[in-house]
């Protein structure tokens, strides 16, 4: 699944806005994830997952930074996230189904904050982009 030039442009444009609130969006996405899909909390037994917790905000930032890297290197997401891909494959081993769940929650957070920018075309481009990122992060699993 490759992104068209138009899709890449849509991703990059929205990212410019999202980046200004990346930390908050990251934390909100995780909050939505843990609330709607409690089974995802099993990967964070060592975390304080209460709303506004330092760890939640910190981890949200980490996730959004990685997504930012993928946006910056949108023509070579695999190269940009190679280390993260290995981390997820050999150490974290988060079940692949969870990437879809987090992607969905990120889309919800972005849609809620930028409704006018989140047109159907932008929605499609972001869904595809996050799907690409998820693929890269799970491709070394086996």
């Amino acid at each position, binding site marked *: 699944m490759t992104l068209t030039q138009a899709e890449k442009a849509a991703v990059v444009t929205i990212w410019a806005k999202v980046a200004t609130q990346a930390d908050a969006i990251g934390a909100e996405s995780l909050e939505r994830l843990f609330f709607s899909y409690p089974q995802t909390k099993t990967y964070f037994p060592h975390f304080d997952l209460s709303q506004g917790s330092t760890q939640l905000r910190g981890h949200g930032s980490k996730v959004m930074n990685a997504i930012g890297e993928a946006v910056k290197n949108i023509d070579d997401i695999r190269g940009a996230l190679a280390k993260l891909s290995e981390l997820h494959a050999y150490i974290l081993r988060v079940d692949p189904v969870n990437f879809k769940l987090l992607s969905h929650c990120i889309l919800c957070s972005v*849609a*809620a904050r930028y409704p006018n920018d989140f047109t159907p075309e932008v*929605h499609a481009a972001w869904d595809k982009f996050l799907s690409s990122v998820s693929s890269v992060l799970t491709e070394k699993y086996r």
Partner: protein
Amino acid sequence: MVHWSAEEKQLIASLWGKVNVEECGAEALARLLIVYPWTQRFFSSFGNLSSPTAIIGNPKVRAHGKKVLTSFGEAVKNLDNIKATYSKLSELHCEKLHVDPENFRLLGDILIIVLASHFARDFTPACQFAWQKLVGVVAHALARKYH
């Protein structure tokens, strides 16, 4: 039978009260067809679906979106009896329409995103949770009579 807490019922009902069923339904179906183009396979009789603009403006898409979301309203009105509410529709989707139930989950998630974009801050994580539960229950009910 699904158990709904008082809070979940309240979150669902209060949001539903503010939903423009025609607009939201049309938007949800259009986005489904745009974001997951393979879902267009069920709508070959709908005419022009060649671009996002064509899909959004397509009167059959709008009408069908309204129909689908209106039916969803039945679930909201009958939270304690969703299985029975969709029994006949489940048979229809299996025997006549031949729709893979995965599509119900896809549409449910698209609806959630449409609600998020319409209600913004009001669509809190708690609100999303109640609605994810609802779309899940509806999807399950629609798949229940498949054979």
